[in-house]
């Protein structure tokens, strides 16, 4: 074994703690980087990637089966501009009910023998299996089943068909082209059609050129021309699907990019700091090696080797760990984006390994070269402790602080190594920012969620539908549906209001009448809610302006203002049942019902305004469940029911919260490991001083207090920097998420931190620092005084 190898081996072996710390820090940092990079890759044009992964359909076309044949449709694949086609598939519209006879939103189902392998729209099976025989159904994975409810195994009945046949859900699948709500085997379709003319054919086309609406339209015209006139009944361009889908994914892109970037920056910072620190502590040893005849280049190579061995081990383990963590995270991003990413891209792993090793090499090279260039006598003299004179001013200042002396001694330590301390402050700041951001994002999302609830109890008419989102066939609609309602008489309304107001525990109520109006200068009908009662603003958060106070005033959401090119204070003309009403926009609320196009006003603004729904707020301490049960007998005679309003947490919020928690914990761990490494280095460097302190009578607890105090300053500074940075990040990201979805967010969604929380998060930096310092502090306390004193 050469002298150089022996030096490297003994260096790695003798400094076991440092070797383990380097390996551990690199491992976690690389894991965080793998995850961060994966998120960045996953967030890069997710729709386009998902579309490419599934060979998405540029045109989804529906045909009348009485006007064309299967052969003609197959031949349409030869139409000008068609690059590939799949189909024809028979389609049918079904109206299932669940096991409690509750109606489920209608579904367009397509008869297909297999999910993938198709030249166009290779559907991804996400759960269960594909349908293999009649009576089996695969449903689209679009969030219609809440995360806690398993779709596979659910049985639906088709009560409108002869014999009320059943369909058992055997799988869930994802189609980025949104070509169906469900799939059955082809031979099932005929049985699902209520008449011979029911349903039709579906063809899926990819065109040679489909980047613009004109190109897709040209393809559609070519297909139409190749078939009998009037055969094409409907079609959908992939550009429309992409536009619809981008609203949801746009919410996540800034959030995931922020975490990805945070992870990468922290990894660079911590790894650089750890390696530079490891080499600098070896300065005296470098002096000895040079005294023995090692050349500067041999010294540099020896220290490169010492840094690279644990770093390489840590990096490889980190890649493995990062890949393991990334798989469940990718499952979540697949759910969000509709992509089918199965693992971390190999180039991400390879690139990160190369980058980390290059970073380690560069950092170690710079630090070792500096040490290697030192004159031998100086290197020997430098020893372990920081140069005398550094941080003396801090020691002088802290000595005057009226705290126990071990604490004030520790507080001065970071100032002896200002560059290293600054790097640790930065690492803690990143960790504190990540935790603050994580909490803020969760609080903002909870506030967004709270805007969906307008009361504790709701009164409706008829039987309520539960759970499953409604929506147009084929086009996924993720909005929770309102209970089924029918208009009632004025007498009934008055009686219900009386029942509500006389019921014990009522805090306030709001009766809501629904209608449709048109807005001058805007095409299409919009839903308008006419409200009456004393708690009608409940749940609505104002972004600007105020809640309506009298008839003729309306409150709208940002998408309405954007679409109608109006602003708060403007007057618009509504047409309600043929009557024109001039109304003034007095407020902008956060309201995502009907894609933010819903209009809110006083009931008296509308021509007919009998409430169909009542939202009731109960007094503090009243159980909504018991309240609803007590109220129910009073309103049953009006064919009304009372139920608690249970909005539940949408899957998308659960996903964000889960991702946020995982990523924050990882970043906080990396920060704590950075602190651990610093304290290990500091303790090694100061071991002789430690021996002096102990010889003078410093007890183990006082030693621990001194070490903990030495990182508390960095923790406090990191928290003081990181917390505002986290708040700023949360505000920026949430604002961007709102902007991506087309909303101007109210202050209540952005301002989620109170002064107490800010102080607590500021102190979070100290928690990270203390957690990182505990282990080496214990080691310092246990160090034998005689051994420490012998360490020069």
């Amino acid at each position, binding site marked *: 074994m050469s002298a150089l190898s022996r030096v490297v081996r003994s260096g790695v072996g003798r400094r076991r703690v440092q070797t383990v710390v380097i390996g551990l820090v690199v491992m976690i940092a690389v894991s965080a980087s793998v995850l961060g990079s994966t998120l960045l890759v996953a967030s890069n044009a997710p729709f386009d990637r998902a579309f490419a992964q599934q060979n998405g359909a540029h045109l989804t076309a529906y045909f009348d089966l009485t006007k064309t044949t299967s052969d003609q449709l197959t031949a349409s694949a030869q139409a000008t501009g068609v690059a590939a086609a799949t189909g024809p598939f028979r389609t049918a519209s079904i109206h299932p009910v669940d096991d409690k006879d509750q109606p489920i939103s209608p579904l367009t189902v397509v008869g297909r023998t297999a999910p993938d392998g198709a030249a166009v729209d290779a559907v991804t099976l996400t759960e269960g299996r594909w349908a293999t025989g009649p009576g089996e159904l695969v449903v689209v994975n679009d969030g219609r089943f809440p995360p806690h409810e398993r779709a596979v195994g659910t049985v639906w009945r088709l009560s409108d068909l002869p014999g009320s046949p059943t369909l058992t859900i055997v799988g869930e699948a994802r189609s980025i082209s949104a070509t169906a709500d469900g799939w059955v085997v082809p031979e099932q379709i005929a049985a699902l059609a209520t008449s011979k003319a029911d349903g039709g054919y579906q063809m899926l086309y990819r065109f040679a050129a489909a980047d613009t609406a004109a190109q897709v339209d040209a393809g559609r015209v070519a297909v139409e021309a190749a078939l009998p006139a009037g055969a094409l009944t409907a079609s959908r361009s992939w550009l429309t699907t992409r536009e619809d889908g981008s609203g949801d994914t746009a919410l996540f892109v800034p959030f995931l990019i922020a975490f990805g970037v945070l992870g990468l920056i922290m990894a660079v910072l911590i790894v650089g700091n750890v390696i530079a620190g490891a080499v600098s502590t070896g300065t005296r040893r470098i002096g000895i090696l040079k005294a023995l005849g090692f050349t500067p280049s041999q010294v540099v190579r020896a220290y490169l080797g010492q840094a690279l061995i644990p770093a390489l081990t840590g990096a490889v383990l980190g890649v493995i760990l990062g890949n393991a963590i990334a798989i469940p995270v990718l499952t979540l991003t697949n759910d969000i984006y509709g992509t089918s990413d199965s693992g971390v891209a190999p180039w991400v792993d390879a690139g990160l390994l190369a980058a980390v090793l290059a970073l380690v090499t560069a950092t170690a090279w710079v630090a070792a070269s500096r040490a290697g260039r030192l004159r031998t006598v100086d290197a020997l003299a430098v020893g372990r402790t920081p140069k005398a*004179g550094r941080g003396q001013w801090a*020691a*002088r200042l802290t*000595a005057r602080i009226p705290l126990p002396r071990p604490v004030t001694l520790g507080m*001065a330590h970071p100032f002896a190594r200002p560059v290293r301390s600054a790097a640790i402050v930065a690492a803690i700041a990143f960790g504190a920012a990540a935790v603050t951001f994580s909490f803020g994002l969760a609080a903002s999302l909870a506030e967004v969620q709270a805007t969906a609830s307008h009361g504790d109890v709701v009164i409706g008419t008829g039987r309520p539908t539960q759970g499953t989102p409604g929506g147009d066939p084929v086009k996924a609609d993720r909005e929770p549906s309102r209970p089924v309602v029918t208009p009632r008489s004025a007498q009934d309304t008055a009686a219900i209001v009386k029942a509500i107001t006389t019921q014990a525990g009522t805090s306030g109520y709001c009766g809501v009448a629904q209608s449709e109006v048109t807005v001058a200068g805007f095409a299409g009908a919009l839903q308008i809610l006419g409200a009456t009662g004393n708690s009608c603003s409940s749940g609505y958060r104002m972004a600007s302006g105020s809640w309506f106070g009298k008839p003729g005033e309306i409150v709208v959401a940002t998408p309405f203002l954007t679409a109608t090119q109006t602003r708060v204070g403007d007057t618009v003309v509504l047409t309600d049942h043929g009557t024109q009403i001039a109304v003034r926009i007095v407020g902008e609320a956060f309201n995502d019902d009907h894609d933010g196009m819903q209009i809110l006003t006083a009931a008296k603004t509308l021509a007919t305004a009998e409430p169909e729904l009542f939202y009731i707020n109960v007094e503090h301490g009243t159980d909504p469940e018991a309240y609803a049960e007590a109220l129910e007998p009073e309103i049953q005679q009006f064919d009304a029911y009372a139920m608690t309003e249970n909005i539940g947490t949408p899957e998308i919020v659960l996903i964000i919260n889960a991702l946020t928690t995982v990523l924050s914990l990882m970043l906080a761990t990396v920060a704590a490991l950075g602190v651990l490494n610093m304290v290990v280095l500091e303790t090694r460097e100061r071991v002789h001083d430690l021996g002096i302190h102990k*010889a*003078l*009578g410093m007890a*183990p607890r006082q030693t621990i207090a001194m070490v903990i105090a030495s990182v508390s300053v960095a923790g406090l500074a990191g928290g003081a920097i990181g917390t505002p940075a986290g708040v700023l990040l949360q505000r920026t990201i949430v604002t961007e998420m709102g902007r991506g979805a087309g909303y101007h967010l109210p202050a209540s969604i952005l301002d989620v931190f109170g002064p107490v929380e800010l102080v607590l998060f500021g102190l979070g930096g100290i928690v990270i620092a203390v957690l990182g310092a505990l282990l080496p502090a214990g080691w310092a306390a246990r160090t034998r*005084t005689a051994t420490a004193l012998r360490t020069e």
Partner: protein
Amino acid sequence: MTLPMIELRDVTRRYGDGPPALGDVSLTIAAGEAVAILGPSGSGKSTLLNLVAGLDRPSGGTVTVDGVRVDELGEAGSAMYRRAKIGMVFQFFNLLDDLTVADNVMLPAQLTGISRSTAQRRAMDVLGALRVDRHAAAYPGRLSGGERQRVAVARALVNRPALLLADEPTGALDSASGEDVKQLLRELHADGQTIIMVTHDLSLANSCATRTIQLVDGRVAVDTARESAR
């Protein structure tokens, strides 16, 4: 008969499988004695001093100092013991470079929990008594070797310990500074301070010690107290 201040009974200290650094050493030292421990390198001098200071624990036997069984103390207990009863002076001073002279001297007092002002008063008293009070605000790096050792002695005495332990107190000093330290130790002994010093320096032993113990291979080869008793 006065009770011994220090009593070592059959003390052995082994490191690993090799021969003992100290083997079956038994001795007593009375209050007010100034004892010099002599011997070649590896004879067990520093081991003996560390055992008395509670910095190390014997492999066998007992160490009792001023009524305290030092060999039975844990880490926290031995720290309290050192604060209360021991002052230590080292060959290379072991002053903390980032603290001023005054802060160095105050440190052992402050570790006992007394206020800064009380510690400061005590430190200035002892610095004054050792004639280095004019350097109170300076950092140790700016003092001469003799001055540094005076500061180290001041630090050792700030808690008014029953026992002063000195490990080669003149080993790192030039002859003028060495003389200065010898004079200081003589004065302290004259004031009744019990002192144990480990040294290679025969002139230090001869000028400052009332008794010398010579160690060879971890055993007491010569003890002038025993010689005179015979």
